[in-house]
């Protein structure tokens, strides 16, 4: 039974499936990193943009605009080559990718959250001030939780976009799914089979992430129904 199954599978899959699994895990690892660093940083950036001192606000706005208006590919190139030259520190593909993804996702998440904050009724702030609620409590207990939940669909979209964007990391030789597939394709000279398999893996993982995000969205929406 098993041999019938293995006979049907292409040769490269039998030989290189551990590599494809490992490549997919690297892609997911960089996605997790982009969320883990980008989301909290995005919250901070959104608050600074709306309520920070001018000295901090202006550079942060400039950074967000710079990142949002340039392609991730260009940013990765710049980070990968500018850091060694400007600071004399060597940067591995993984480190450059981590910096680039965290920076980019922070800016995108911040725009989602900023939109959510702007949509909240002004009266909430006035009421909180009138009740003597402190600024820290106002932001962390009242405004940000609402803004985050309200913008969950947009943030879920950002997460999916960054999952797909991990494939760009292959350009600076990060061994994620795309790079691994390219390597297997060169070795087996079977680009059609390998690229089809890679597409299916992306589709399955992307579908899984989208499903999980929808469940998370539904759960949080239910808890916060107001």
């Amino acid at each position: 039974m098993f041999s019938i199954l293995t006979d049907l599978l292409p040769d490269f899959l039998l030989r290189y499936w551990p590599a494809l699994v490992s490549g997919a895990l690297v892609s997911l690892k960089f996605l997790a990193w982009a969320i883990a660093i980008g989301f909290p940083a995005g919250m901070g950036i959104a608050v600074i943009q709306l309520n920070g001192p001018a000295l901090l606000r202006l550079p942060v706005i400039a950074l967000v605009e710079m990142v949002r208006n340039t392609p991730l590919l260009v940013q990765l190139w710049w980070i990968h080559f500018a850091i060694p030259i400007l600071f004399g520190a060597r940067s591995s593909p993984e480190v450059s990718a981590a910096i680039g993804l965290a920076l980019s996702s922070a800016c995108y998440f911040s725009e989602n959250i900023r939109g959510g904050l702007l949509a909240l009724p002004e009266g909430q702030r006035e009421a909180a001030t009138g009740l003597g609620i402190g600024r820290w409590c106002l932001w962390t207990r009242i405004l940000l939780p609402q803004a985050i939940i309200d913008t969950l669909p947009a943030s879920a979209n950002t997460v999916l976009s960054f999952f797909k964007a991990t494939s760009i990391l292959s350009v600076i030789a990060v061994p994620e799914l795309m790079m691994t597939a390219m390597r297997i394709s060169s070795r087996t000279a079977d680009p059609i089979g390998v690229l089809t398999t890679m597409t299916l893996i992306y589709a399955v993982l992307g579908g899984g992430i989208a499903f999980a995000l929808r469940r998370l969205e539904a759960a949080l929406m239910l808890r916060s129904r107001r």
Partner: protein
Amino acid sequence: MYKWTSFVGAIAVSVLASVSASHAQSNDSLTDIKTRGTLRVGMADSVPSQSKNPNTDQWEGYNVDMAQNLAGQLGVKLEIVDASWSTLIPGLVAGQYDIAMSDLFATPKRAQTVAFTNAYMSLGFSWVVRADFPGDDAGKLNETSITIANLSGGAMGDVIRKYAPKAKIKEVASDNVFSPHLEVASGRADATLMDHYNNLQFLKQEGGKKVRILGGDVQFQQTPMAYAVRPGDQRLLNFLNTWIAYNQTTGLSEELRRKWYGF
């Protein structure tokens, strides 16, 4: 194999390097390597020359064995720095490694950006055409109705223009060396030019059934392959040339060529 690099990227990095005098690259990498105790070699994937085994995540191939021998001769440790074909030369210029040891075709155009060693090997090219392409005459490719796929940034573009100046050239930008072959197999191009070794590899696979090599087994224009160092890195260049010549006399080059290329 021949998707080399974005020269624009290399130039941008050169400009960046030149404005950053505080971290300017030393012009004597040989001394730096000895002081550091590590030889840093940049490699981009290309089978069988140098490629990372996807399962073990280790580099292997002709140039990997060569790099190990080089580090041994220098009495230092070897560190292979991962690069892609797009970043190989910008990474060299930016000082991320001392040498780019990948199967680069040494052409005069490229030699204006980096300093090439003497050739360590040469490879011939061959035409891959649609399976239903009539006849075996390469002269038929020089027609305005013919579309030839070319891997952008590779050394083949100039060769295609030389042999088929009338044909329409379709640039394919990809890190996958077989992208131009796929253009031919899918009928979007009539032909492509690539080194004979890679053409034979593609023919063995599923997509290879829709294409054939023009003239059966005809290779032409043997083109030298060489290692690249930063321009001005003369001591390292001299050392590498001596080492390459030495390997040819001891038979190491031939032994490794048989091991990895099979000829």
